[in-house]
């Protein structure tokens, strides 16, 4: 069964209003970034001493990295579990992942107080710090993904020697990507293990690291469906529903395992009762669990959903939303601190970064062999 029912956009230079919007938002975001570098964080964000981390961390870094987990998940599916039919999805997914990590790094250039010193973690070490591990892994993994994507460029440019070289190390790269992802997806959870008294018991757990890891895999798989549907629509290139449906069929197992971990943890710590407190956090908990995990588990288990592109998309959206909500809860909503709404500059820089990622994907789809068999 061929998966190659691809339709390439005929005229690579015919840009629609989607591209235009991406460009405008991107440039506006860039302007705001420059503004932030010149005037400092106090003038351009709503951050403060009792709320030092805000939208950029919760969204760009936590959610961004978690949702980019689709890349290593797809790499594992194709190369480790040898499910060859997903091969056409590999490049776009890895590109999406790479863009996700680039957004995280770009987000850091405005969130860090001294972004020019970002490289310090290379020479100043702290093996106790989760952030150190995350920083190194993100840096290394972004490099790995760039290398994994380089064949796309080399093919286009007909650089055969580098092409052969990269292809010869593709399996080690893939393995490296999986190992690195395992480490930093879970280390993002380790980070929040350090503040048990500041996060509501329904979200804090001593096993946050494996919970972050598993939820990232599940959400990454949802993100593949979500993102490939959007880009398929925008670039007139659709991934076959059968493929997406098969992927969707595995998601309930991943999310189900996550829910087991989550609830078992709550039962063992005795915090399960907080679910029924009917206060703000408990309502937020139910929204996250029901919409973000239960709904995808239930609906992706239904063949009628897995056969329909639209239903696949919206259920995947719920899964993505659930992940977003989880990371926002852990790092913002349920973390003690000053009440906080992002400043409009923060918001539009994040939006600009997303637009940038979409724009790059857009251009890659038009000018590089993103969707071709190789």
């Amino acid at each position, binding site marked *: 069964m061929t998966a190659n029912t691809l339709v390439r956009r005929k005229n690579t230079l015919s840009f629609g209003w989607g591209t235009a919007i991406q460009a405008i938002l991107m440039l506006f975001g860039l302007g705001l970034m420059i503004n932030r570098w010149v005037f400092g964080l106090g003038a351009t964000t*709503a951050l*403060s001493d*009792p*709320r030092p981390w805000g939208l950029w961390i919760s969204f760009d870094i936590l959610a961004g990295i978690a949702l980019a987990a689709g890349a290593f998940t797809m790499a594992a599916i194709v190369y480790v579990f040898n499910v060859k039919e997903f091969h056409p999805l590999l490049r776009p997914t890895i590109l999406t992942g790479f863009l996700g990590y680039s957004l995280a790094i770009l987000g850091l250039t405005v969130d860090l107080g001294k972004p020019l010193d970002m490289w310090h973690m290379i020479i100043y070490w702290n093996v106790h710090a989760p952030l150190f591990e995350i920083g190194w892994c993100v840096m290394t993994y972004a490099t790995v993904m760039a290398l994994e994507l380089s064949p796309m460029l080399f093919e286009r440019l007909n650089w055969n020697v580098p092409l052969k070289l990269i292809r010869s190390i593709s399996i080690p790269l893939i393995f490296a990507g999986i190992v690195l992802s395992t480490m930093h997806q879970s280390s993002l959870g380790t980070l929040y293990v350090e503040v048990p008294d500041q996060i509501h018991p329904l979200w804090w757990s001593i096993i946050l690291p494996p919970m972050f890891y598993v939820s990232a895999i599940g959400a990454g798989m949802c993100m593949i469906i979500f993102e490939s549907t959007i880009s398929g629509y925008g670039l007139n290139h659709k991934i*076959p*529903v*059968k493929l997406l*449906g098969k992927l969707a069929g595995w998601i309930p197992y991943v999310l189900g395992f996550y829910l087991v971990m989550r609830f078992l943890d709550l039962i063992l710590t005795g915090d399960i009762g907080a679910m029924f407190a009917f206060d703000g956090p408990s309502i937020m908990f139910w929204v996250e669990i029901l919409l973000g995990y239960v709904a995808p588990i239930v609906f992706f288990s239904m*063949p009628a959903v897995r*056969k*329909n*592109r*639209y*239903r696949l*998309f*919206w259920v995947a*959206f719920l899964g993505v939303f659930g992940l977003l909500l989880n990371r926002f809860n852990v790092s913002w909503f349920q973390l003690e601190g*000053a*009440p*906080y*709404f*992002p*400043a*409009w500059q923060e*918001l539009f820089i994040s*939006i600009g970064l997303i637009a940038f990622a979409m724009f790059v994907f857009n251009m890659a789809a038009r000018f590089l062999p993103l969707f071709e068999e190789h």
Partner: protein
Amino acid sequence: MPFKAGSFTEVLTQHGVARRDFLKFCGVMAGTLALPHDLQTQIASALEAPARTPVIWLEMQDCAGCSESFLRASRPSAAGVILDVLSVDYHETIMAPSGHQAEKSLNDAIAAGGYLLVVEGSIPTKDNGVYCCVAGKTALQSLEEASANAIAVVAVGNCAAFGGIPKANPNPTDAVSVMDLVTDKPVLNLPGCPVNVVNLTATVVHFLTFGALPDMDGLHRPLFAYGARIHDNCERRGHFNAGEFVKEWGDDGHRHGWCLYQMGCKGPVTYHNCPTVRWNEGVSWPVAAGHPCIGCSEPGFWERPTYVPVELHEFTPPATYPDVVKEMPAIDPTNAAVTGVVAGLVAGAAGAVAIQQLGKKDPEDEEIVED
């Protein structure tokens, strides 16, 4: 000529001063000079010594206010005695002789040397200094001649120390201070408008006791009198710390003796010991009387608007305390609104598309065979 008299005790008796009062005076001087209390005996011995230092007192462009202040030292009488005992050989305002006799006293005293030169008033320099002439000599010339043989020069009053009123804008006579002109002799400044005679007396006592001028700051002012700000010793400082300020003349705060900072008090930037030694034999001082300090011991004080609050440079905590419970920074409503609008738009658009799509069948649906 050095004053020659009988024994010091005889002088005291002649002036009707009890020895006990004299010793008390020495104790007060030790306190004013910020010296250890047990030095009062050393001060007493010095003041009783027969050899008394001559003083030449020159008045330049002045109002004689500092001389008037000096004269107020006639009471308590012990201080007056000391200054009599100083052998003031030349003082235009208060000496008895005049004309050629007076000038002869001056020239003899200068020729004899070993005197303390006290200068009152600023020195004009425009047009070779013709704007102040005594006995056919300009003030410039007199200062040069008199300082040549002096042990040290004491500039009393803001005019002599920093130029004072004559130097204020537009300074038509190009008035300058003593330390601008005398560079080869130690110059001590005792600014104030006028000088506080207690500080002059204490300086003299110090000189007589130790044979040296007291320790000075960067503006040549003795630290014992000009080492702390008015603000640091003011009896109304508690009101400042508590934020209790006079806002209008005669208001409730004024009647209760509240801080005059907002009425223009220059206390925070003025170095002087008025709150402790006060004026007119300790009767009162400007702030106690309900008027802000005008900063008369500081250079250029005539340039500063009297009733405009001065810019502070040193800050201290107020009398109040922050609460243990912290106020959280408020959410900016604009931020909340923008986030709300954007989130609403995204949710709305997503919802609209979702509703439209979820009923539809995908064309590919039929081809799928469940495996």
